[in-house]
């Protein structure tokens, strides 16, 4: 019951709510963090003796806030600290606090905490690092390892991000509906960024666990905004993508394309949950980009083998996505569906106008090379694949394209 692993899991689960409330009290990330850490230390001393509290988040908020106030008092007058035994006797002190933390305030606290990390002035890399540190509670060491930088470099990145956030003065009043929606949209984008950091990494890379962390954050958002169809869509999208995790890489670390994956290795539980969330989202009749992308992922999940894929449905969903969120990347993805329906010639025509805007995009040249190869235009395919290798973001991506190139050799 009180083994360290359980306490650790409880502290992690309570962290966003507790940090969110402490940030509201102190209006300063560093102070909130210090208070939370102090509360965690006391929990580690206290909970094994007295058992876990009914409401761990409320306990941590109260103890963290008191500890910080004690520290101020102590440095001022050396007043004796109240004993932890007093604090551990929760039932009286905790209940009124929990009541005051009514659902809406709690929700805005967590949202503010997450939004603080994805302030538009922060570059994406800093947003992700800050969110992983502040919301998820990963250590600087863990984050540094995930991003293959040294610990001091990551420490500096996070410190710089905090300074920028501090200067940006995010208001602490309860946000209005429009402002809340804006914050939620930014937080969803950041969550998906975190997911993609993990998802695009190979299984053994340090970043891989970030995909699971992003799903945990999405479930947290979903508990705060249960009726928001785009939050349902985002969570479903990540679950459906994550379901293919085990099939996406060979033992050698090489990428396996969707159509070549061993579908028996897809995680049926994640697919079922993703589909269940999409069912809920569709009822709201308020489609959005995350829902459409999740619907596309769900079509792949439904096909027992690659040849069963309903490409016409995928094409019309990409068509819808193009009108909601016009982007050359979306058109590129649609071209893959078009290649299946109308052949690679038509797809090649479709992506030609994108080349200038996607001149630095690995997947553009990967797809172009594949279409050319299917058309038997091997010399041109080779040029495209060479461009793709030069733009590859990971060794696995480069190795994947090299395999295509290897196939070209006997053809010449």
């Amino acid at each position, binding site marked *: *019951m009180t083994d360290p692993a359980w306490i650790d899991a409880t502290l992690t689960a309570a962290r966003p709510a507790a940090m969110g409330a402490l940030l509201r009290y102190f209006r300063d990330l560093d102070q909130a963090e210090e208070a939370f850490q102090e509360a965690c230390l006391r929990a580690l001393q206290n909970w094994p003796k007295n058992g876990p509290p009914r409401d761990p988040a409320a306990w941590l908020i109260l103890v963290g806030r008191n500890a910080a106030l004690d520290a101020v008092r102590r440095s001022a007058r050396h007043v004796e600290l109240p004993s932890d035994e007093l604090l551990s006797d929760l039932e009286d002190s905790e209940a009124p606090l929990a009541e005051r933390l009514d659902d809406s305030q709690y929700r805005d606290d967590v949202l503010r905490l997450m939004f603080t990390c994805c302030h538009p002035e922060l570059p994406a890399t800093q947003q992700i690092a800050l969110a992983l540190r502040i919301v998820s509670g990963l250590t600087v060491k863990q984050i540094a390892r995930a991003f293959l930088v040294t610990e001091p470099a990551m420490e500096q990145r996070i410190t710089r991000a905090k300074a920028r956030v501090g200067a940006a003065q995010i208001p602490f009043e309860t946000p209005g509906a429009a402002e809340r929606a804006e914050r939620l949209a930014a937080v969803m984008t950041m969550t998906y960024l975190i997911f993609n950091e993990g998802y695009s990494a190979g299984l053994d890379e340090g970043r891989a666990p970030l995909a699971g962390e992003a799903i945990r954050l999405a479930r947290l958002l979903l508990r705060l905004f249960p009726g928001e169809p785009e939050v349902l869509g985002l969570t479903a999208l990540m679950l459906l993508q994550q379901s293919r995790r085990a099939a996406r890489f060979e033992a050698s670390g090489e990428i396996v394309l969707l159509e070549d994956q061993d579908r028996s290795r897809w995680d049926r539980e994640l697919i079922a949950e993703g589909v269940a969330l999409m069912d809920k989202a569709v009822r709201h009749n308020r489609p959005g980009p995350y829902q459409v992308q999740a619907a596309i992922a769900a079509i792949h999940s439904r096909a027992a083998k690659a040849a069963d894929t309903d490409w016409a449905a995928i094409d019309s969903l990409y068509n819808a996505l193009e009108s909601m969120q016009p982007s050359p990347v979306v058109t590129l993805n649609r071209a893959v569906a078009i290649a299946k329906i109308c052949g690679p010639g038509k797809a090649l025509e479709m992506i030609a106008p994108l080349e200038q805007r996607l001149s630095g995009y690995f997947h553009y040249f990967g797809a172009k090379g594949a279409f050319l190869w299917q058309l038997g235009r091997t010399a041109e395919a080779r040029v495209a694949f060479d461009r793709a290798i030069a733009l590859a973001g990971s060794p696995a991506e480069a190795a994947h394209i090299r395999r295509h190139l290897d196939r070209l050799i006997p053809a010449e």
Partner: protein
Amino acid sequence: MLYTILCYNDEKVVWSWSQEEDQAVMGRLRKVQDGLIKRGVLGPSLRLMPTTAATTLRKSQEPPLVLDGPFAETKEQLLGFYVIDVENLDAALGVARELAAANPGGAYEIRPVALFNPDPRVA
């Protein structure tokens, strides 16, 4: 006598277990369940998706109101249940203790079954 063992825990904790942790817990539970099956004690059992996948139909009004999320906001959520066939409450508590040893944290509510309809699809 039929009892249900209703499993409650903080889903924020349970659903952030890593795959390895989850498999370890399920493996320990499976051992206990195998013992229960041998003793002819275990009936149907199931694990629920998190409450984020739940929808609630409020039927106190006409037409009923469909709401996203669980019926009640609670600190601990219903995560699944077992149906067991045992002599009495003491025996039911014994089974719950066996399961608890394999999966600590949260609570089991032991509740006698008033009416049991077996799965009609199973002939």
